């Protein structure tokens, strides 16, 4: 797990937030951690990665940030995280991850992603353990946590 792996994800996050939401973001210096304790009260979206790298990407959006993002996209007010909201946010995580894979392919790393899994509210998210590259993406509508657990699947 290296910062080189994070760059495509932080770049893709910055681009997608700018293009889709007109928001500038700042990505904090990442740190490697052993455990993410769950559950939490955020909207947790995980995307599994398969291919040269395998593992999982976690996007964790605070409720207020989530509702504001969907408001920016739709022009409508939202007061709760429901099927519409989770689906829109899952697609955003999907778009960011898909764009990040293009960045990884430029490092000659070929991967694919699986459909987003969404966990919200009291169910929270399971505790994650392992070599986790963790960072925070700061935006004017709130901070998004980005946690990456990826392992090489091939001997290069």
């Amino acid at each position, binding site marked *: 797990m290296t910062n080189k792996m994070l760059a495509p994800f932080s770049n893709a996050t910055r681009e*997608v937030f700018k*293009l*889709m939401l007109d928001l500038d973001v700042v990505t904090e210096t990442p740190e490697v951690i052993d455990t993410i304790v769950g559950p939490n009260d955020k909207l947790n979206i995980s995307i599994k990665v398969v291919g040269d790298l395998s593992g999982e990407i976690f996007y964790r959006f605070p409720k207020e940030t989530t509702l504001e993002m969907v408001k920016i996209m739709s022009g409508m007010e939202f007061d709760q995280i429901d099927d*519409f909201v989770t689906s829109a946010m899952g*697609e955003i995580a999907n778009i960011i991850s898909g764009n990040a894979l293009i960045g990884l392919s430029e490092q000659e790393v070929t991967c694919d992603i699986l459909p987003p899994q969404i966990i919200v509210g009291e169910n929270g998210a399971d505790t994650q353990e392992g070599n986790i590259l963790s960072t925070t993406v700061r935006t004017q509508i709130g901070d998004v946590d980005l946690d990456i657990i990826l392992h090489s699947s091939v001997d290069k």
Partner: protein
Amino acid sequence: MIWKDKYLIGVPLIDEQHQELFRRVTDFVEVLRSRDEWEQKVDKVNETLEFMKVYVVTHFEDEEAYQREIGYPDLEKHKEIHNNMIQYVVNVAEAYEQEGFKEDLMQRFAGKLLAWLINHVAASDQKIADFANRKDVSGNDE
């Protein structure tokens, strides 16, 4: 959904279709998100879904024809994105009918459609405009 001029790609036919898609998806979302009972809005939702199934295919075909015309190098990749979306719309429409026109499926469909369309128009389609501008082949001289 808020249309922004930065989404324009400089090809009148495609730009008009993008704006029509934004209008239709906005109508769709507004009906879907209204506080009316599902029974009161299901006809309008079904009508919009039927429109989307046809209009999305027409738009994608026109957009691909333009890409072919200007020699866009990522045409095949872009076609794959279009085909995946068409397949998704078809699958959702089938499931919606089979499951008896349930609201939760339409809510999920509309949420994804909203984000997908903004990204597609704001990012993917802008690459076509960038290519046309670089080659000065936008076909928008008249």
